[in-house]
């Protein structure tokens, strides 16, 4: 199925290496390895380095995870500590079911 082949483009916005950001990235990598193995791309954007990028994706909270592809864009803010919520938020479960 075409949908299954699609690469997930995920973007994680952080501001420096704060504990929250580190936790978020760790959590994200764990979930992706479990549920989206081989079909995901994670891009980490440090807003302390690229502050101009915050406006484009309407970032106000840190950390924020943005699902760019597949559309529509979804956002999850926080350290992603609740797996269930992240999966629902990213709509990963439903894709797997298909």
């Amino acid at each position, binding site marked *: 199925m075409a949908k299954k082949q699609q690469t997930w483009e995920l973007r994680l916005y952080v*501001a420096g290496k704060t504990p*929250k950001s580190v936790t978020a990235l760790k959590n994200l990598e764990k979930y992706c390895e479990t549920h989206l193995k081989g079909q995901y791309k994670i891009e980490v954007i440090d*807003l*302390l380095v690229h502050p101009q990028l915050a406006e484009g994706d309407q970032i106000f909270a*840190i950390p*924020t995870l943005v699902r760019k592809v597949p559309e529509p864009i979804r956002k999850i803010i*926080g350290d992603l500590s*609740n797996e269930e919520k992240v999966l629902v938020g990213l709509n990963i479960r439903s894709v797997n079911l298909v």
Partner: protein
Amino acid sequence: MQLLSKTKTGITGLDDITMGGLPKGRPTLVCGGPGCGKTLFSIEFLVKGATEFNEPGVFMAFEEKAEELVVNVASLGFDLEKLQKDKKIRMDYVRIERSEIEETGEYDLDGLFIRLEHAIDSIGAKRVVLDTIENLFAGLTNEGLLRAELRRLFLWLKEKAVTAIITGEQGEGKLTRHGLEEYVSDCVILLDHRVINQISTRRLRIVKYRGSLHGTNEYPFLIDEEGITVLPVTSLKLDKDVSSETISTGISTLDEMFAGKGYYRGSSVLISGTAGTGKTSIAASFANETCKRKEKCVFFAFEESPKQIIRNMRSIGMNLEQHVKKGLLQFHAARPALYGLEMHLASIYKIIRETKPSVVVLDPITNLVSVGLINEVNAMLLRLIDFLQGEGITVMLTALMGMVDEQMDEGVSSLVDTWISVKDLESNGERNRALYVMKSRGMKHSKQIREFVITDRGLKLVEIYIGPSGILIGSEREEQKLQKLSGKDLKDQQERKLMASRRQGNAASEQSKLKAGK
């Protein structure tokens, strides 16, 4: 001793009541209900900062879209697009869509801080507006975290030393819906928009201004094509310059009553009288005379249309049209009920500031009572007269008596320098006008009641005749005059006789004295 330094807002009138502007380098909370003008207020603060004080500003919108905002304020002559291009203003629209966002675990609002900092640093902003940050509460569920972050944000703004305006929607029983006043405590301004007797008035009040004196009243303000104008009661200090120059009333016989000169320049004159006593004619004569001296006059007509006034005055030999054509005389006619008192006052202010006349006529002020309570009208007139005197402009007010009660006379009469009363005198089955000067500050004026006649060649006052039964006016006076004329010879004769008899009498008394001396 170091005083709080302030940042001028550039909003007309506001810097007067805050005595210099908003606290520099600190956040100010501007709150009010929907449609009270918060966004406009803050935009004007930025635009004026950028254009007048060379202080670039950042506008962070949580409510309206940046593009919409540009269009909305364009009607006020604010070119946000150009200002953005010139790097004077930076707009950032923060969109929080509840449905797109999932919260899981801990987070903070560093993203917002980074965005704001980036915006501030990119143009070297000195001013910041957050409009309306409370929308964050609608987008995010973790209220405790939000509050902590907001507190941090306001502290951070202070550290950044930007003068900021934070807007907030008014909540029930509270200044803002989410209690922002708790965090922003240096200066709080409340905007209000209320409708009384179907007439809407906007008001502004400084609830709090830490470390500074400020006006505590509610000040009316309005939003027109030039932005916000706050109307403070202009200097009540009574320290205006006064002129001892006099200007003619336009009626030579009336000049005579004022020590032969007229009104003082820059003074206020009230003409009161019952209906149809010629108040407008007296006012028009004054306007006419002013224009003849090549000075500017603005005539605010609340009762008649300019054309009507011009026609009516033509019938008494006054050509006002020529002055209008030369631009010396300006008519502004508006029905009082057209808008609220404040709007009237503001439009009068504006016209006066633009035209810079030497004389202003308001005809009649009593009509304004139809849009406001008497004490409100009096307050408005107080402000107006104060303003005009500060500018050295002579003002003439006409008032219809009998329509309102004494309160109005009392209120206004203490404000004015000169008060002329025109009355109807009824006697012998006819009605005649009589005029007298009730008061004229600092001037020796006539205390006489004079008959006031309107002829097709203008207005004049006639010396009153005292007959055996008192004052003779109208046809009685005419009769007396005729008698006097026709009986002139007779009178001469009589006088000669009288003189002769006196001489005789004198001679007789001399004789008696001589006798007594003996």
